[in-house]
């Protein structure tokens, strides 16, 4: 048994919390029992474990950048207890066999609940539907389907996918990017791209797909989730669709809540990402939309790349940023410290709503007796300049290196077992040995 003492819940109330057999068994003023381990959480914030809807673990096929194990460690370091692993692996996660393999690797790693996302189309090629029901009914229990990295651009395939996913109450998570409008695109189509001579990536390429898909979701009655919303116009479309009663949810990444295309002025490929960094107007609109619930969730789009993929001229560099380790810190900087959101709303956006979208029913609830002890302890008063020693995955392509970030993940508990203690990720053998 473990006793966490003096923690502050998201709403500010102070509590002790007892964990036994991976479950929360006591809340309120508790007395230490003989032999019980104590975790002093005085001054720390206790939230339900974070849930990421959008993680690239790169395995199988991309083990040079990340593996299920190393990505799980990065997730734990960031306070996560569940991640949804995107299917753009080699081979793509488009069959029951591959998603079961990823889920099994996740269980073996033991740091977080690894929930595979299935591909919408075979090979993520956007032509034929993948076996969505087989993946849903496999041991991996897939609930989210996405061709992420590519858009399901064909309107007919998108419509069929939405309809067909209803068999398993699945959610189609769309990477909204009209490919004809973004061929060769390098950076948000705006003043910075014009200056730098980089091919523009127009906002409408994202917004047009979201509008189309919202109408398809409405006409089919199916569930649509929009990945990494990045523009003010997308927020407007989302708001309009929600008002019409469309079953639509949306996520935003931490980097789109903070960084703008101005960061690309030095042609540093760490700032190259899909969708691209946008303007300050977009950042402000995304923050407001997260605060008012128009955007449901924060998702990292953690996208590890080996160093050589980012050590080049801009157009040759890979797109993507690692984000698991810094997500809650960046969210604190972007919306908590700016007064737009409180911690209860952050807990909703980073844990409970993504859990609900991903179908993790057990995790989609507040801290309470009887629920799994998936928890994170944060120290919001901490501040530090991020360096690579704060990253726990295999890759270090973070856009936040060298920046001062508030907050610190002090401890993460996954099913009652600490995966992070005193800010350090524990070794695999320590996990199996218990505490």
């Amino acid at each position, binding site marked *: 048994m473990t006793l966490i003492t003096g923690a502050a819940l998201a709403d500010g109330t102070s509590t002790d919390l007892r964990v036994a057999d991976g479950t929360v068994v006591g809340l309120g003023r508790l007395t230490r029992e003989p032999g019980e381990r104590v975790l002093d959480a005085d001054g720390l914030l206790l939230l339900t474990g974070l849930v990421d809807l959008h993680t690239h673990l790169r395995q199988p096929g991309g083990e040079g950048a990340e593996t299920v194990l190393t990505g799980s460690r990065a997730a734990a370091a960031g306070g996560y207890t569940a991640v949804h692993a995107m299917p753009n692996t080699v081979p793509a996660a488009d069959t029951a066999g591959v998603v079961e393999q990823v889920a099994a690797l996740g269980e073996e790693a033991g740091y977080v609940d690894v929930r595979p996302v299935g591909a919408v189309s075979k090979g993520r090629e956007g032509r034929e539907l993948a076996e969505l029901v087989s993946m849903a009914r496999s041991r991996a229990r897939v609930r989210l389907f996405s061709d992420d990295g590519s858009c399901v651009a064909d309107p007919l395939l998108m419509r069929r996918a939405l309809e067909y996913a209803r068999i398993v109450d699945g959610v189609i998570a769309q990477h909204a990017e009209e490919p004809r409008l973004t061929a060769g695109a*390098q950076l948000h*189509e*705006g*003043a910075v*791209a*014009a*200056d*730098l*001579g*980089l*091919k*523009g990536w*127009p906002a409408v390429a994202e917004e047009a797909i979201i509008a189309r898909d919202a109408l398809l979701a409405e006409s089919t009655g199916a569930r649509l989730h929009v990945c990494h919303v990045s523009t003010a116009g997308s927020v407007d479309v989302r708001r309009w669709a929600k008002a019409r009663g469309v079953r639509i949810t949306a996520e935003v990444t931490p980097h789109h809540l903070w960084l703008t295309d101005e960061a690309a002025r*030095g*042609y540093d490929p760490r700032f190259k990402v899909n969708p691209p960094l946008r303007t300050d107007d977009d950042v402000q609109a995304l923050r407001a939309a997260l605060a008012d619930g128009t955007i449901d969730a924060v998702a990292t789009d953690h996208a590890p790349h080996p160093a*050589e993929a980012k*050590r*080049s*001229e*801009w*157009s*040759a560099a890979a797109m993507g940023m690692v984000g698991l380790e810094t997500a809650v810190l960046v969210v604190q900087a972007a919306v908590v410290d700016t007064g737009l959101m409180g911690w209860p709303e952050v807990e909703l956006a980073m844990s409970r709503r993504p859990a609900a979208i991903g179908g993790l029913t057990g995790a989609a609830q507040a801290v309470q007796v009887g629920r799994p002890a998936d928890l994170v302890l944060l120290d919001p008063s901490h501040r530090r300049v991020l360096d690579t020693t704060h990253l726990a995955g295999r890759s270090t392509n973070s856009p936040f290196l060298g920046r001062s970030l508030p907050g610190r993940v002090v401890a993460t508990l996954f099913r009652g077992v600490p995966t992070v203690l005193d800010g350090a990720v524990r070794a695999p053998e320590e996990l199996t040995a218990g505490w």
Partner: protein
Amino acid sequence: MSDHLLTTRGFTRDAAVRLLDLAEDMADTQQRQVKKLPTLRGTTVVNLFFEDSTRTRISFEVAAKRLSADVITFSAKGSSVSKGESLQDTAQTLQAMGADGIVMRHPSSGAAHVLATSGWTRAGVVNAGDGTHEHPTQALLDAFTIRRRRDGDDSRGRDLAGLRVVIVGDVLHSRVARSNLWLLTALGASVRLVGPPTLLPAHVEGWPVTTGIDLDEAIADGPDVVMMLRVQRERMTEAFFPSAREYARLYGLSVARADALPSTSLVMHPGPMNRGLEIAGAVADSPRSTVLEQVQNGVAVRMAVLYDVLAGERA
């Protein structure tokens, strides 16, 4: 002295005038029987061309040789670069071989900036055109050519205050346009960009220019300089414009349009030209055309740039 020449953005008037004056000095030496100066003797300049550009490459090669530098020309085609070697490895290799200066043409915007700031090499970097970003020596030779036509032997020390320039055509993909607009405005000129809406950048609010879509209107204003940009025929297949004929009718500098210009107006083109598309052959060959002077002045301007970047101690 400059460490590198990557962009014309941020040039002050005085820095630009100083460089143009230096180019005048270089041009003077080219009138002599013996054109070679000992200035960069013992210095190694690598021409690193990841894109074909015979005229720019030769211009830099001549410029470096006239300054007595050792010149190595390295074309990406058929080299290790085409076998997948990265820019980093190429740069580090050149560093290990003792390159003092690297003149680079690269298809990726920002490549020269990355080379200069990466730490892979200590060489001085001269941007000879990076993607659709900048081509600073082209802008310098254009400004030099304008100044010579305007002020002749009395050019030294002068800027281009009050000059009105129209740049016409595919601004979106033009590194020449970008470098020119920063340099010409730094020298006091005003710049108007004219082209079809498909070939003008969507966001130029940060640029010190005006824009328009009507070439005849711009010509009716009587500009001092009309600078025509090369139009690539591939753009047609990407729906930027429907046909060469319609493009030429709307944005080509025809004889009739040239005749509508004031008699003193200059017509410029960075080359290579598509005669009959963006510029009529008769206009390109007319006395108001500076096309060959631009090529000629390119050597003096590039000598000045190489001298500016490479003479003296490097940090």
